[in-house]
């Protein structure tokens, strides 16, 4: 087949491109992963009965996780397309983490003497990152599957970004169960869980996301 014939074949009945195709595909995968992780929390350890009474700490926590998900989602979108710079999106992820670090620092400094370590470690520091990482797995799988149909410039970067987004989704589901209220705790241990997921995503992505 001559190239001109191929051009005609490809163009014929090609139809329009669905608007925001990449965003919708990634958002669909993330949302489906959130549903699965939420069901796992409800069916497993259960929702924290005091969740509704947590007030401002819960809002801070959800604001951080939500902002992290948006920034990581933007990064995943950029990284899933060929030749698209992702520096601005990566900087936005860093910005979200730094903002939370600022808030954490303020609470640590203003806390009464001797309280810093309990603000940082809470009562569940040793389980939190693993819980977040575990709950990120369904989303990570769905996102990698979605990105496999796209064209990432770098499989490792796209996998990392997808893992970070999956980590934020896992963190959101984990926060239903979690009783911790300190921003420093959320910053360190929730982020560690998301980072575990991101590292797994990078390792898998560098092998899987080829095209």
């Amino acid at each position, binding site marked *: 087949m001559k*190239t001109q014939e191929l051009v005609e074949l490809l163009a014929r009945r090609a139809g*329009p491109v669905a608007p925001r195709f990449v965003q919708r595909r990634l958002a669909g995968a993330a949302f489906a992963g959130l549903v699965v992780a939420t069901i796992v929390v409800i069916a497993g350890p259960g929702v924290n009965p005091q969740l509704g009474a947590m007030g401002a700490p819960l809002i801070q926590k959800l604001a951080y996780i939500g902002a992290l998900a948006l920034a990581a989602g933007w990064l995943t979108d950029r990284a899933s397309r060929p030749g*698209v710079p992702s520096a601005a999106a990566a900087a936005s992820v860093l910005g979200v983490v730094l903002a939370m670090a600022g808030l954490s620092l303020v609470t640590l400094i203003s806390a009464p003497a001797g309280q810093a370590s309990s603000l940082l470690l809470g009562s569940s520091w040793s389980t939190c990152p693993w819980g977040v990482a575990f709950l990120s797995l369904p989303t990570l799988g769905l996102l990698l599957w979605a990105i496999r149909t796209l064209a990432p410039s770098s499989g490792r970067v796209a996998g990392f970004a997808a893992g970070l987004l999956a980590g934020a989704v896992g963190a959101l589901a984990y926060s239903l169960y979690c009783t911790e209220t300190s921003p420093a705790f959320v910053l360190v241990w929730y982020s560690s869980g998301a980072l575990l997921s991101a590292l797994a995503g990078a390792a898998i992505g560098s092998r899987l996301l080829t095209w």
Partner: protein
Amino acid sequence: MSDDLEGRLRGLWLLAQSGDEVAYRSALALAAARLRGYFLRRMRTQPDDVEDLVQETLLTIHLQRATYDPALPLTAWLHAIARHKFIDFLRRHGRSGALHDSIDDVDETLLPVVEHDLTARRDIGKLLDRLPAEQRQAILDTKIEGLSVAESAARSGASESAVKVRVHRGLQRLTAWLRSEA
């Protein structure tokens, strides 16, 4: 050839994204000519492979057209795909030694736009025959005969979205074959 590829191609491409078939055909033909120049410039020692790579890249461009962000330059997207395909080609052939120019240092605006078809060694037409029957039929209906998706769906008894999926999967499979057999 002085270059206003971005200007010419982007307008056509945006029309094509909204479903204009004539614009899409012109855009792909322009892109093919640019890709030919891109690969020729980089693989002077194996010109036989150029047209195969042009065709494989065109298929990828088509399958990936949803990944183009209209806010960004089209040629950057196009060249990123071409570069990826070229590196993939070198890796598959273990021919990185044949690379006599750095991949990135070329001013793309000075590249020739090579209009004439070279001869592809692999025949996509023949590969089509090897596709699973449903995928082959969906491609023959819509892309060779030019039936609408609705007409092809009525003919095969499948839904319209199933026909679209079959066409897409079939083209994906062709691309994978081109890549593995090269």
